[in-house]
């Protein structure tokens, strides 16, 4: 009995540690006046409305969403053919591309950020909005690459063999057998890249920080000039989006399996 109790206490303490800052932020976000107080004084949801009503916050939200949508698309577009090739062919030297895909994610992010900054500055394209999408796309290639490699590995090769014996060529096999089988992995790879791009600060800041404000950049800039409950509301919004997306992945797929292989590769 005492051991069950100790275990529960331990889980509770860890849960509290993880939740505490978020609880306080959620509490602060419903303050009626523009105060940083907890427990909140009064109750108001108007700061959440601010995210959409205030032109600056709305612009940051739109910029972040556009960036995340396109960056995740680029990441998947790079990862899919690569993972397909590595699964389909025996070409050991091609593993170097896999290494290149994983490298930006393992090294401290400031390195990728500075690499991108020097690159875009040298090529004279510094500050263009699409440079951030490409930079994020490359930075987060790891995630779809890992989920897709896992997806391909789970395909029963005899299924594909059957299709080709019956006369299907590579393209048909890819379209009718392989793609449907790896679709869940494709979607979760996209979702991982999307959520992380939405939250990413340093690469976005170093590439387009002076021309565009994404939400994390906007929060950090706002933090310097003092505090508004809108920042707290945006933070809660971010936690909710992440929890929703990962919850959906868990609901429709097997997140344990996805993570069991993810971390061992990374």
């Amino acid at each position, binding site marked *: 009995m005492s051991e069950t109790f100790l275990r529960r206490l331990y889980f509770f303490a860890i849960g509290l540690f993880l939740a505490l800052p978020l609880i306080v932020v959620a509490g602060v976000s419903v303050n009626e006046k523009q105060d940083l107080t907890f427990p909140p004084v009064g109750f108001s949801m108007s700061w959440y409305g601010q995210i959409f009503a205030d032109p600056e916050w709305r612009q940051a939200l739109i910029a972040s969403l556009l960036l995340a949508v396109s960056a995740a698309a680029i990441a998947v577009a790079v990862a899919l*053919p690569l993972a397909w090739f590595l699964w*389909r062919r025996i070409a050991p030297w091609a593993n170097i591309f896999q290494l290149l895909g994983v490298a930006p994610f393992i090294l401290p992010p400031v390195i990728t950020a*500075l690499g991108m900054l020097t690159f875009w500055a040298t090529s004279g394209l510094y500050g263009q909005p699409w440079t951030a999408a490409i930079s994020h796309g490359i930075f987060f290639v790891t995630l779809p690459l890992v989920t897709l490699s896992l997806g391909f590995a789970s395909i029963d090769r005899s299924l594909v063999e059957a299709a080709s014996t019956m006369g299907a060529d590579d393209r048909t096999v890819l379209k009718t057998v392989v793609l449907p089988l790896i679709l869940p992995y494709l979607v979760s790879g996209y979702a991982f890249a999307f959520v992380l791009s939405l939250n990413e600060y340093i690469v976005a800041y170093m590439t387009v920080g002076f021309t565009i404000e994404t939400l*994390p950049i906007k929060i950090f800039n706002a933090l310097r000039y003092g505090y508004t409950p809108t920042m707290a509301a945006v933070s809660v919004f971010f936690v909710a989006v992440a929890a929703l997306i990962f919850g959906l992945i868990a609901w429709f797929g097997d997140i344990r399996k996805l993570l069991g292989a993810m971390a*061992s590769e990374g």
Partner: protein
Amino acid sequence: MRREKPQSLADYTPLFFPGVMLVVFFVIPFSTMIAVSFFQRDPSGFYTTAFTLDNYARFLSLFFAKILGFSLLLSVTVAICCVALAFPFTYLLTRQVRKVQTVWLVALLSVLSLSEVIIGFAWSTLFSRTAGISNLFVGLGLLEKPVALYPTFGAVLTAMVYQAFPYTILVLYPALVRLDPTLLEAARTLGCSPMRAFFNVVVPALRNTVVATVIMVFVFALGSYLIPQILGRPQHWTLSVHITDQAIYQSNMPFAAAMAVFLVLISLALVGLTLLAGRKESAS
């Protein structure tokens, strides 16, 4: 479909787009950065082309040694705290029913994906005078009046442990899930208490995993750049913060690049050590 060697050049076509993208937008930027680290600073622009070792020579100063020492010490502390907290937790988590595991993993992923800005902001709120935890202590009679708990080293450390904690669990999870359950059964039938079985069987069996995880988390913590700025004083700034600072605010891209190259070398050396630790375990 059997795996086969590429027969013709056409078989390489799937590799074309990923290859071009990764080379143009990762290999070339990376090489550019290395090249820039040997260039000269141009205060009015980004840099002027030259070959100089001055940027690296600056490493030999006491100022730089302090930054490096602090960054490494902070990251080691974060890594040890995280693994010490996360290892028993992950072990217990893998023994829970599927549903409980899934809920925890979703929560951990959500925290892991949180922007460093948000983590820094959330902890600065929690450590603030007006909305912070010190109000709770006043309520309990432990403190006379609420105080701000940041900027301090403790605040930086706490927030960085918070940031790296979910990552630590996700690195440990696969190894602990695959741990052979018969090992524990044997220990239990021989009369070990669960606590003793954990310390005498599980921990030694996964010694190399623990070492590898400490290093992984160490590299992860080296990348932290906003938390030290939000929750610490300038003396708590890490190498990552100084790289950003030199590149953006001091417009000294060559020096920033030299520091980044140095950081890459440290990280690569450590990742290499991790692979070595991992190999030993699978061999034994």
